[in-house]
């Protein structure tokens, strides 16, 4: 789709804007959740932005370590604001580690913190689905369903919207079921469980012209789903 937002002479690709919009919704939601959880909202916001910045550096470092020669011959590329050469794995690793280290340093209880972050993260993931949709990433399989989208010569499952709706619902679920009495960690586990289902919904309706069976991605997501379900079950049994 390669959607572009035109502002005067400026043409801005829509996909990175959805990523940024998602991050903003994530920080706003987390601030609200932190207040509900009686955590220091200012501290949590600082943690988010600092971890976000470290995650961004980690995302670029992910590419730097893979292709050092290309960066060394063009050092300015390392600080390029263009949304390319950003490794999701590197960003998640550095950002995740930053959250853990800062939480420990600032003495924020980890499970309570995860519960605070979970709904916002689900909304961010929902926005990422919209970014994929705008960028034309991922092709759905052909369908006769009325909500199918005319795309690349066929009516297809709008897989990226499935992802967005799934994660949007998950975030909504997490926001509305928040209870202060619920034991710490329950909410993030619930978000993990429903989020896995949303991810599975996305990967199961992807175009598969070579008729391959179950993909490794689906297996990994399903293992994640099982993991969340088992942990929730065990925790409930323990609390009873």
């Amino acid at each position, binding site marked *: *789709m*390669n*959607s*572009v937002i*035109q502002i005067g002479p400026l*043409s*801005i*690709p829509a996909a990175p804007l959805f990523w940024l919009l998602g991050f903003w919704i994530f920080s706003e939601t987390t601030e609200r959740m932190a207040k509900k959880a009686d955590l220091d909202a200012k501290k949590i916001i600082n943690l988010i932005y600092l971890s976000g910045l470290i995650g961004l550096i980690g995302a670029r470092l992910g*590419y730097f370590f*893979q*292709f050092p020669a*290309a960066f060394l*011959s*063009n050092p300015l*590329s390392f600080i*390029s604001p*263009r949304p*390319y*050469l950003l490794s999701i794995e590197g960003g998640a690793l550095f950002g995740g580690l930053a959250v853990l280290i800062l939480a420990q340093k600032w003495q924020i209880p980890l499970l309570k913190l995860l519960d605070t972050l979970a709904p916002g993260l689900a909304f961010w993931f929902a926005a990422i689905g919209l970014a994929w949709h705008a*960028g*034309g*990433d*991922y*092709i759905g*399989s*052909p*369908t*006769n*369903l009325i909500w199918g989208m005319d*795309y*690349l*010569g*066929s*009516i297809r499952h709008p897989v990226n919207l499935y992802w967005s709706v799934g994660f949007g619902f998950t975030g909504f*679920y997490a926001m*509305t*079921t928040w209870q202060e009495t619920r034991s710490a960690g*329950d909410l993030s586990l*619930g978000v993990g*469980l429903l989020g*896995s*289902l949303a991810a*599975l919904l996305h990967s*199961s*309706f992807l*175009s*598969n*012209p*070579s*008729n*391959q*069976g*179950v993909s490794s991605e*689906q297996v990994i997501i*399903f293992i994640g*789903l099982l993991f969340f*379900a088992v942990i*929730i*079950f065990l925790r*409930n049994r323990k609390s009873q």
Partner: protein
Amino acid sequence: MSTLRPLEKVMKYTRNPIFLIFTILLGLVLIARPFGLSDQAEQPGLPFGPTKGALAPLISTQNFGGDNVNLESLKGKIVVINFWASWCPPCRAEMQAFQNVSKQYDPSEVMIVGLNSTFQDDLGQAEAFIAERQITFPIWLDLNGEITRLYQVRAMPTTFFIDASGIVKNVMIGGPLDEAVITITIEEMLGEVQEQ
């Protein structure tokens, strides 16, 4: 918030073991879909389209010299198609990076193609610009806007990275792109070829 209460009640069941089992079963149904629950048979082969994961739409046009050129003849090579126009400042700014990258690779392996939006450019100015910058990689012409429409190019410059089997691997809208971005994207595609 009172309108959300019924939903809240429903959601409390998420801790119920029956709900957990239902979720797992739903996951299994979603995974099993490729084994026969598909709602419409999928045509073999990838669809054509200017997006990631699709086959690059075929191009048949002319170059600056007036020779007929086409994308299909480049199959088996990694092809980078850069849509540009001489009036577009970021296009002009990134042209040198494409020239430098084109020198790094064997043209039988990686081919950079500049696709001039001739229908909305001045051919004389475009030629003068290419001569002035001493660009040596092929420049193809979009004489009537058909290729721009086919590739759904909505902003200049836009660059398509196409792998050796003709699949669009990356689309970069806007510029100027620097050498590192172009080189690394090509190297990633070359890495995929080696893995195969």
